[in-house]
């Protein structure tokens, strides 16, 4: 974001006496800021194209992703635009179908873990006491390890397979959301508008959902964006290690893992799926970076470089 835009945001913030939540801010203002950030626009466009591509995969794939043809290990050509693998399967089609799994796992795990994490953080920060203690001790335990290692530990326990990977990645990212929300709740809880709401007899649930929750959303949205890129990397990593989906499923991590056997004869098998992962993750990071600036979420609130 350019300095001038930042200044505009600052002025706008100072003009309102109360902390401005995402919900309260003029609905289209953030979109205008986003539009001015070239990186964010590029990231967003790529992501939209990828998501649409994944949704209509059967229409844009040139072959069935599991169809075996006699063209073994063909380099890219007009028949197979990204080449074929050792079983003659079309690499481009496999990558297109792979986008479905990568994006699905990335988005679904982060949504799940955001919902549960936010709930834990809210309860923990609002009620305090033994509940807070219990939740925080568990969160601290996870905090000692990078998310990927936690996912590996959990796969060690639950076993491999797509549904287990989703559970493992969801649980692995939980602590980040709980932490962010709890810290916010602790400070919002003491705000005058919350005390006012309580004094006119608002119920706990109403205070939590109407007065506190919306004000925690900005960092949660930023955290979720960052997390999606790490969740996609985690899924690819687990698949690559043989801990993810079952063999022969077209996923980016698995195609890369298989490519190692043909490293000297089929560079395209290694290059293109990795490029797909990198472009996706890079776009999310571009978008997330801009979002962090616009929503003015400080690095302190969200681990920009999540581990």
């Amino acid at each position: 974001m350019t300095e001038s835009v930042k200044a505009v945001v600052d002025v706008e913030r100072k003009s309102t006496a109360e902390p401005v939540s995402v919900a309260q801010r003029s609905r289209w203002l953030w979109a205008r800021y986003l539009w001015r950030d070239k990186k964010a626009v590029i990231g967003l466009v790529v992501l939209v194209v990828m998501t649409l591509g994944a949704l209509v995969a059967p229409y844009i794939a040139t072959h069935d992703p599991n169809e075996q043809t006699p063209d073994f290990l063909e380099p890219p050509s007009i028949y197979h635009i990204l080449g074929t693998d050792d079983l003659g399967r079309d690499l481009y089609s496999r990558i297109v179908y792979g986008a479905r799994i990568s994006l699905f796992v990335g988005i679904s795990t982060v949504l799940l873990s955001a919902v549960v994490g936010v709930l834990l953080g809210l309860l923990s920060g609002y009620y305090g006491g033994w509940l807070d203690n219990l939740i925080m001790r568990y969160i601290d335990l996870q905090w000692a390890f990078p998310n990927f290692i936690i996912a590996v530990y959990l796969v060690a326990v639950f076993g491999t397979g797509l549904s287990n990977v989703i559970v493992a990645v969801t649980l692995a990212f939980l602590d980040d959301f709980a932490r962010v929300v709890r810290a916010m709740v602790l400070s919002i809880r003491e705000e005058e508008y919350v005390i006012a709401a309580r004094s006119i007899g608002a119920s706990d649930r109403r205070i939590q959902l109407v007065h506190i929750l919306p004000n925690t959303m900005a960092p949660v949205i930023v955290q979720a964006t960052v997390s999606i890129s790490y969740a996609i990397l985690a899924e690819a990593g687990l698949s690559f290690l043989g801990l993810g989906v079952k063999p022969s499923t077209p996923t980016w991590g698995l195609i890369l893992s298989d490519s190692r056997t043909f490293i000297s004869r089929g560079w395209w098998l290694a290059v293109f799926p990795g490029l797909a992962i990198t472009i996706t993750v890079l776009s999310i990071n571009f978008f997330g970076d801009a979002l962090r600036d616009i929503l003015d979420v400080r690095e302190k609130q969200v681990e920009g470089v999540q581990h």
Partner: protein
Amino acid sequence: MTRYVVWRIFYALVVIWAVTTLVFFMLRAVPGDPFAAMLADVDPAAADELRAKWGLDRPAYVQYFLWLGRLLQGDMGNSIYGSNVAVSRIISEAFPRTMSLAFIAFSLSLLLALTAGVISAIRKHSWLDHTVTIAAFLGLSMPDFWLGILLIILFAVNLHWLPAIGYVSLSEGFWPWLSHLILPAIAAGTPFSAIIARMTRSAMLEVLQTEYIKVARAKGLDEKTVILVHAFRNALIPVITVMGIAFALLMSGTVIVENVFAIKGLGRVLIQGIINRDYPLVQGEILIVSVLFVFSNLLVDILYTVIDPRIRYVE
């Protein structure tokens, strides 16, 4: 300070105990033990016999106390798969490999990141600065295992500069050891470099704005002294804050990168154990890996006070 360190070591031990205990019981609570995959469909009786032999037919808490008791005597049990080798032996063979990789990765990427960060701060908005920024973004977005494969294709398969896979111990010579570790170290260290370079750049920019830098320049110190002695040391403080996170990322990178380069280190052994559902091996591995993470966090926190004497922990 001493009290703080003692308290932190105690806390670290509690975390390690909690993780290993959780994993121990969860492994047994989830269906599918090592022998189910191996034998159950073919020969259930043989599977039961093996379970009895390995003590897996006993209640989980009995198994747990037996395991804990042996562990305290330094015995981690034997690996179920393969040739019944002691887990402690497998781990002690894997340990130096992972440590060598982590050490090279850490030194190479730290050197690179600090240099890149300082230069891009001094030459703000130059093409060099932009290159560093783009490289850092890429480094954080690229899967480390993909980078590893690309490095193998380029430097081993095509250029023949460095060996593609495997590990040679230091006792067989310095260069054979180092040459096998350079490519994996780059792959594992890249996200670390990216984080540290970005942090160094922004910390340096902030420090260069301060009054004491102006004073240092005004009294006629040459630029090199200003940058290296006055600015750099203070810029290191925020860099060390992210060091813990970045180092954890580097360590988890080694888990995956070892699998790319066929280095039988802790990461590769752990993954093999998980795929085989080799309980004793997985338990031992998770214990060691957890010790590594928890104590490296602790080390970073202590290092923090050494670099910046203003920081004192009270607890």
